[in-house]
């Protein structure tokens, strides 16, 4: 059973356990967001909606939005965008990256896996490229609200593990709600259908079981088709 809270709801008197989505006033913890409370460990409110806000250490999928030497402007599926300096690629570049050849390395609309290294008070964001940052070949991107990401991963990764096994796909879930899937066309179709289903029904309980059922029935149908 999930407990839904609204801003201003009293949660606890243990101010030391106050976590994300809460605030402390006069020695009490209150909800600061509309969402579902999680009292295990830290007291957190997992929001049901809202925009992604980058924070230190997040690994996310960015999309190149603009090229303005010596930076790539990266869209992070967030109200805030970030700049990626050419020096981030200098290690692997064959030549000096200059004004003219930036798009040879990363062009507008290319996807990159980046890690948020630092966010300052003015929301100026520093990024680092992850090792295998390029996502160009053989796969597809789907986007879900970032608030649904924990649900697609599941408790200690149960949901994502099942998805990977049953859909026979490589699935990479970024914290900003962008998901990269790589596999055979049919498998990718199935995986994206299921992930969107999870995102739509994220607030219901017993979701993992229902998804498992859905995947199994889909498989059976496929087999029947092949035989018949």
């Amino acid at each position, binding site marked *: 059973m999930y407990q*839904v809270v609204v*801003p*201003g709801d*009293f949660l606890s008197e243990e101010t030391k356990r106050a976590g994300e989505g809460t*605030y402390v006033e006069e020695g009490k913890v209150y909800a*600061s967001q*509309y969402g579902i409370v999680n009292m295990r460990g830290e007291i957190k409110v997992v929001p*049901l909606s809202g925009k992604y806000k980058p924070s230190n250490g997040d690994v996310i999928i960015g999309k190149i939005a603009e090229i303005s030497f010596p930076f790539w402007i990266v869209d992070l599926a967030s109200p*805030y965008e970030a700049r990626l300096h050419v020096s981030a690629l200098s290690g692997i570049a064959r030549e000096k990256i200059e004004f003219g050849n930036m798009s040879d390395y990363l062009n507008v609309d290319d996807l990159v896996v980046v890690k948020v290294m630092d966010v300052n008070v003015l929301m100026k964001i520093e990024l680092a490229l992850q090792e295998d940052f390029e996502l160009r070949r053989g796969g597809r991107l789907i986007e879900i609200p970032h608030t649904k990401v924990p649900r697609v991963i599941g408790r200690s990764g149960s949901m994502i593990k099942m998805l990977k096994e049953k859909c026979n796909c490589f699935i990479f879930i970024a914290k900003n709600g962008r998901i990269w899937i790589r596999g055979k066309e049919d498998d990718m179709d199935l995986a994206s259908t299921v992930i969107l289903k999870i995102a739509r029904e994220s607030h219901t309980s017993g979701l993992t079981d229902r998804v498992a059922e859905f995947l199994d029935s889909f498989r059976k149908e496929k087999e029947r088709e092949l035989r018949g």
Partner: protein
Amino acid sequence: MKEEIELIKEGKRLDGRGFDELRPIKIEVGVLKRADGSCYLELGDNKVIAAVYGPREMHPRHAQDAKMAVVKFRYNMAPFSTDDRKRPGPDRRSVEISKVCREAFNPVIMRELYPKMGIEVYVELLQSDAGTRTAGINAASIALADAGIPMKDLVSSIAVGKINGEVVLDLNAAEDNNGEADMPIAMIARTNTITALQMDGRMTQEEFGRGLKLAMGACHQIYELQRAALVTRYNQNYEGKSKREEE
């Protein structure tokens, strides 16, 4: 001197309500697919839709605040929302109401969490019957929560007024037009903090005190309705009990 119109008959108001009774309220959360948060609300014959967008990049750029988000609030009456067609677009009245409503949310929205961004609130009145700004604030409050904007509390709002020498709650159009005073308030129910208060007309100090008490009580009722609307959206087993009571 204006002739007094009879608004109270045998201790009841023209629409049959008692002095301390609210008009029926209907709330629906998340009615607009493309807004980040939205709410449709009816307060008696008032019908209002609130939509929230953001936090998103603030335009115009020079209005950005490097330290916190800027809240934009637009209160607007549809041309067909009144008895005589209203000339569309903002006018003196709606600009003032927008400002008052925006400031009613100042103490609750945690603006410092989204520097440089803008949070846009649009309140559109489809049908009006006095007390539109209170209906607008109630709807906007729910739409803000639905958009996932971090807030300290919800804001609830209602008007009190004076008709035929009696202090009554939640005036309708007939009472507002022919009454002696109208006083809309907005407040945070949990802490009894008043975030907006206006008065039009005359009341004695004693009547003001009585009216304020009446309105504050009603805000608690409205708060419960707002909360229930948000919770039942995701939890059908909700029993209508406020978390505050457990404190």
